[in-house]
């Protein structure tokens, strides 16, 4: 008897509180998650190769500006994240190697460098059964903004160089415009996953590098708040002040337009800043939310011409980790747009589109009992070629 009364009491409480509770719109909740999500999503590497070649143009076309004369030495007033924490080490060697150096070889951060500070330690990751991660944060100062830009551009280039890492420019992360995010591919030679983010502010580059000794999957959120905090400290201690603006890619010209445009310049006008506390889709045109122009886009009154001669050949489908798949195909035209279709999806619509690329990493694919199957559709002008289906 009392059990029933008790249940009624608790259910009434839950019902009433449920009614009184204020809930943020789902889109806002997703945006909250996305803002702090250090992972290679969406626009992280969209057109990364293009941006690599012309970042100076992006800066000149409306990005935040920091004076060209930056500090040459790191003052004691600047405290790095974790600095002073128990069992964390600090190294002030100005010529220390960058812990983030995809592909190895000559350290791209040494040229023009005037000072450095390194703080490293071990911290646990995970709410349940935490695993130890080796975290290294580094701050490099350069003689000029241009030297810093050259260094981070090279880091981005190497992240895309298919030498065991994947990533590239990540202006949508909310850490600024000149941000590189990368992580190692799976499987790793030494079974030690690594992830790194590098942020350039004026003549400074801040690097946060995470490495797992246990082979566990790295939490993309890890150290994000520290990176944001570092932005504030760089402003306070070094005068390198820049708001944490987010960037999104505004609609790209369609494949037809790209045939007549210089592909190394066209996308540079398509990065736009927006307040990080908003969802880009709330401040941009509806086209932004779409993966790009589709063959069925409004305005395409004539059906595309099927041309088997421009059908890509899928050369690789590799599972990188849970829900992450690497897909490669043959390039059919330097100005082709490629649409990736998950065959067996609901429905079989493109889940991604890329330009002038021959591979893509799909993240957050839903777990499947069976296989992932894909097709790649090449779109060149008004012609279209469809690959054979390839399954994982």
């Amino acid at each position, binding site marked *: *008897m*009392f*059990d029933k*009364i*008790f*249940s009624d*009491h*608790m*259910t*009434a*409480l*839950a*019902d*009433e*509180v*449920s009614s*009184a*509770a*204020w*809930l*943020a719109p*789902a*889109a806002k*909740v*997703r945006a*909250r*998650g*996305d803002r*702090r*999500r250090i*992972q*290679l*999503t*969406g626009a*992280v*590497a969209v057109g*990364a190769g293009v941006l690599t070649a012309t970042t100076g143009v992006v800066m000149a076309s409306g990005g935040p500006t920091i004076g060209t004369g930056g500090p040459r030495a790191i003052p004691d007033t600047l405290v790095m994240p974790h600095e002073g924490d128990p069992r964390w080490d600090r190294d002030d060697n100005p010529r220390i190697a960058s812990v983030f150096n995809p592909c190895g070889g000559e350290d791209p951060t040494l040229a023009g460098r005037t000072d450095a500070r390194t703080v490293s330690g071990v911290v646990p990751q995970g*709410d349940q059964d935490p695993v130890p991660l080796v975290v290294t944060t580094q701050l490099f100062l350069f003689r000029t903004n241009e030297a810093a830009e050259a260094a981070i551009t090279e880091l981005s280039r190497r992240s*895309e160089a*298919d030498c065991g890492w*994947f990533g*590239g420019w990540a202006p949508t992360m909310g850490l600024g415009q000149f941000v590189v995010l990368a992580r190692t591919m799976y499987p790793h030679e030494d079974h030690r996953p690594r992830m790194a983010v590098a942020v350039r502010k004026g003549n400074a580059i801040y690097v946060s590098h995470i490495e797992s000794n246990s082979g566990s999957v790295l939490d993309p*959120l890890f150290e994000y708040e520290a990176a944001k905090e570092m932005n504030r400290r760089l402003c306070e201690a070094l005068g390198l002040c820049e708001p944490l603006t987010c960037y999104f890619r505004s609609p790209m010209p369609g494949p037809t337009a790209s045939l007549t445009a210089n592909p190394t310049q066209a996308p540079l006008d398509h990065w736009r800043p927006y307040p990080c506390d908003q969802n880009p889709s709330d401040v941009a045109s509806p086209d932004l939310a779409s*993966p790009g122009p589709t063959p069925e886009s409004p305005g395409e009154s004539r059906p595309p011409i099927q041309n088997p001669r421009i059908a890509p050949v899928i050369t690789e489908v590799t599972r990188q980790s*849970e*829900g992450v798949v690497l897909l490669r195909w043959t390039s059919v035209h330097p100005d082709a747009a490629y649409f*990736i279709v998950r065959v067996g999806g609901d429905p079989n619509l493109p*889940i*991604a589109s*890329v330009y002038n*690329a021959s*591979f*893509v*990493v*799909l*993240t*957050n*694919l*839903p*777990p499947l009992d069976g296989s992932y199957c894909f097709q790649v559709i090449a779109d060149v002008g008004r012609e279209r070629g469809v690959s054979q289906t390839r399954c994982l």
Partner: protein
Amino acid sequence: MRVVDVRDSASFDEFYASTARQAVAYVYAVTGDLAEAEDAVAEAYARAWQRWARIGAYEDPAGWVRRVAYRVAVSSWRRTRNRVLAHRRSGPVSPVPELNPDTVAVVEALRQIPAVQRRAIMLHYVFGLSVQEIADETDSSVSAVKQRLSRGRQALAPLLGEETVEEVDLHA
């Protein structure tokens, strides 16, 4: 190279709309702070969205969110707990003005029992979890959960105007 996120926002939004309010009620019942509960639940769902491809496929994604929301709430709740206790000593805390007197009485009663008992009681009576399921969710033993439910019920009975508590089979 391009990296593309293919999470399903529609399924997340549907999940959020159908489960978030009850999650707020649960966290509120445990912490006694509605604003804190709302924020903790929002944080938990934001984390769920970050991992939605995996969590959306769970058998009980709501359970995952509930556990995370609880941890988020408790971690911040502990920081302010002393302040709240001090405030409570100076007079009764007004829980939520919009709640009716009966609900306020339940909330006040819940506040007088330990948090672990509150949590077990809410999971059992609101979400209908079995003792075994509560044990799994709270990382406790079955016997500990039985004890918490029993003691919680014993403590709440007089506070809710009931003289005695019949022992019932908690179908572990």
